[in-house]
């Protein structure tokens, strides 16, 4: 395989606040290949959105105090790119959609203007051509009556339609990469399915690679090629989607999967409370000593609390399935 389209390498990121330094990311690495859909999964505060924001360098300089590692897009390190270069990339080569479509579109500009402006900016289209293209894009994302809708304001759109409009904005310039940060979280379930279907269809039609950030493993199972599981600012497991669901290796991944309701148990069987992962996501202040998950882990031994586990293949047979755990991975290999 050639060089990946987007490659995040050993990304460290810290915020300063009055209470101290928060280490939001501790050595996160992943890569995205052309046309692929990569899922990044984890619970709130694990650093998945921060990673996404960091790729486009959208985190404001204060409070972000420290950022190191590399984010390479087609080989170009975005951490060293100028603001002007970043503005060329944003919305053009890499674009982004956000969690809450109710607040992520500008309420005082028409949907058409919000689509047309990126075309006029990045593709140098004339106003008339940009608006004509905006109508086509609304049609592409299945918004009915786009000719009329293009002149409407966001408050005249439903939540699902706004997210479609966001997708139309993001895809306007045919980007190579689309980062979708919890694109379905704020929507109800039927609309979620439609949005995911739309993203999947557009990926196949346009070849745009997608980074899907979510806490919903169900969404990942249906659409992603590969999955990265994050916990407390670090990557704990990575595998092809089928592989991850078949053989979850990190106790955290297993906990997440166990916490999902199952549809295949018969209704007659008594259904108890879903198992949960005990404890809370740890505070990210101060340096990590040992495995971040150890305090909540049923399998933890002394070594877990003192040494950070390496990120390693879970067995020799499948080098792409890797996890960071002393117990389930390293011991298995040792045996």
């Amino acid at each position: 395989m050639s060089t990946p389209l987007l490659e995040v390498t050993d990304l460290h990121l810290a915020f300063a606040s009055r209470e101290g330094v928060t280490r939001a990311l501790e050595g996160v690495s992943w890569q995205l290949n052309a046309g692929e859909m990569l899922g990044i999964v984890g619970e709130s505060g694990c650093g998945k959105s921060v990673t996404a924001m960091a790729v486009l360098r959208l985190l404001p300089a204060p409070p972000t105090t420290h950022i190191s590692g590399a984010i390479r897009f087609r080989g170009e390190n975005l951490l060293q790119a100028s603001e002007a270069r970043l503005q060329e990339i944003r919305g053009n080569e890499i674009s982004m959609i956000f969690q809450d479509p109710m607040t992520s579109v500008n309420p005082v500009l028409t949907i058409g203007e919000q689509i047309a402006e990126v075309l006029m900016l990045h593709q140098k289209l004339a106003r008339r051509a940009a608006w004509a293209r905006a109508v086509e894009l609304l049609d592409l994302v299945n918004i009915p009556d786009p000719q009329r809708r293009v002149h409407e304001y966001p408050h005249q759109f439903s939540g699902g339609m706004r997210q479609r409009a966001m997708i139309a904005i993001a895809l306007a310039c045919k980007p190579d990469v689309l980062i979708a940060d919890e694109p379905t979280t704020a929507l109800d379930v039927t609309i979620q399915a439609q949005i995911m279907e739309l993203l999947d269809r557009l990926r196949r039609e346009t070849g745009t690679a997608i980074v899907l950030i979510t806490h919903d493993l169900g969404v990942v199972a249906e659409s992603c090629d590969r999955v990265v599981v994050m916990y407390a600012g670090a990557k704990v497991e990575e595998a092809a989607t089928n592989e991850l669901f078949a053989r979850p290796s990190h106790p955290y991944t297993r906990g997440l999967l166990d916490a999902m309701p199952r549809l295949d148990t018969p209704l007659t069987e008594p259904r108890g409370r879903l198992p949960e992962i005990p404890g809370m996501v740890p505070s990210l202040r101060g340096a990590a000593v040992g495995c971040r998950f150890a305090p909540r882990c049923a399998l933890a031994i002394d070594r877990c609390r003192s040494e950070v586990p390496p990120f390693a293949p879970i067995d020799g047979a499948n080098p792409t399935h890797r996890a960071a755990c002393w117990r389930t991975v390293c011991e298995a290999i040792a045996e």
Partner: protein
Amino acid sequence: MYFLIKRIAAVIPVLAVVAVIVFLLLRLSPGDPAVIIAGDSASAQDIEAIRRSLGLDQPLLGQFFEWIWQLLHGDFGVSIFTGMPVLKLIMQRVEPTLWLAALTMAFAIVFALPMGIWAAWKADTWVDRLVTALSVIAFSLPVFLIGYALVYGFSTRLGWLPVQGFKSLADGALPFIRHLILPVVSGGLIYTALLARMTRATMLDVLGEDYIRTARAKGILLPRLLLRHALKNAAVPIVTTIGLGIAMLLGGVMVTESVFAIPGIGRLTVDSILRRDYPVIQGIVLVTSLAYVAINLVIDLLYGLFDPRIRY
């Protein structure tokens, strides 16, 4: 359209209440116009005669309805002191006040908006602190102090600008502008400060919104980001502040007009109050209230222009 008719109809009760209040307040305040007109050496009979001739011996209710009756016929009455029709007196004074108000606000907008926007974008940096400090200073200095300081500097010492007075635009643009520079600057600083603070606060809120992050993720360039995406969202409070400022200025910039001896509404108000010239004061208050209501209507209509969610 229905909204417009409703709003214009709502002006009538407002003006009625204003009329009653101003009428009563004047009659309740100490001082008697007859005494002032008659002068120090007049006898009690003379004063009584003057009072009768002015209709001030009538019962209050009678005086009030007499005045209202005249108003309904478009007659604001006659100045007790000068004998001139009130409406004519006011119209003579409108030009300087209108110009002063318009230019003062224009001055404030030209300086305050960029300052406020820049301070919000550069929040918590030295730019922001500088703007805040300048605003606090400008806001705290009394107009007469700034006015006299400017006159001393630019007129007395340097001799660049006239000390006081007003020249109509009809007398040529240059003298007109030369006479207005100092009044506009000294009266405008406080509005500049107010507006800059308001702009900064609202822009700061807007810049924290999700859709600004979206716009940044789209690669939108800074001028468009600030002016199109952010400022339009911040427009409603800013327009309100500007509108209220204009309304206050139209009501007569008494201190500015006094310091620079500008024959505007503010001066007329002060003079009329000193003379207990009831009809003139009543007329000014009514006309000013009308202007207030009209400006508020314009502001409400502008809201819809900036924020499509506001519809009447």
